[in-house]
């Protein structure tokens, strides 16, 4: 069964450093997402990406965040200068382009720890 894969599974970084979280969505999917879950809180939407551009973003997704689909298979989330409060589990998701809404498929997550 095709699945969304994320690397690394765990990343520890120093405050102020840049991190890139990587995702390989399911190959024929065209909608891509990043969500995050701070420990003890809800899973929150960050950004959606379609047709090589951001289609929606939340208030959380400020200038410190960016997304990219550099090579047609990877989908990355970059945090330019990490803060302690960026520590969270980050989930990538993708869904197919069919008529109407379809379910999203999620990766296993990257646990980001900012120290």
């Amino acid at each position, binding site marked *: 069964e095709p699945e969304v894969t994320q690397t690394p599974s765990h990343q520890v970084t120093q405050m102020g450093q840049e991190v890139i979280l990587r995702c390989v969505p399911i190959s024929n999917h065209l*909608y891509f997402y990043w*969500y995050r879950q701070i420990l003890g809180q*809800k899973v929150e*939407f960050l950004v*959606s990406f379609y047709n090589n551009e951001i289609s*929606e973003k939340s208030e959380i997704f400020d200038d410190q965040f960016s997304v990219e689909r550099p090579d047609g298979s990877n989908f990355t989330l970059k945090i330019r200068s990490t803060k302690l409060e960026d520590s969270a589990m980050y*989930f990538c998701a993708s869904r197919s382009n069919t008529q109407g*809404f379809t379910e999203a498929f999620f*990766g296993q997550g990257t646990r980001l720890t900012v120290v």
Partner: protein
Amino acid sequence: AQSVSQHNHHVILSEAASLELGCNYSYGGTVNLFWYVQYPGQHLQLLLKYFSGDPLVKGIKGFEAEFIKSKFSFNLRKPSVQWSDTAEYFCAVNYKAAGNKLTFGGGTRVLVKP
């Protein structure tokens, strides 16, 4: 703002017991509804979904959910749980008017004792 509530944060029950997890969402027009499950160390997996039609939806692993529009609810049920159902369960809503993102509930951790 749209919001999704799951009433129980933790549920502990014995094998063969019945399970019902509550999910309510705030009004926001037409919705698509989902339950996801996350087994320890694994990714979020879709259990079931509701887009339209029969409000009683059957999913994988013996789970079902009922959409009650008047109550803004989409409760998840399983008549007889197994130890392997130990996981965290997330209700998620797509508000059509708000685009194609999901709004999640807080999750319910379910522990099934053998």
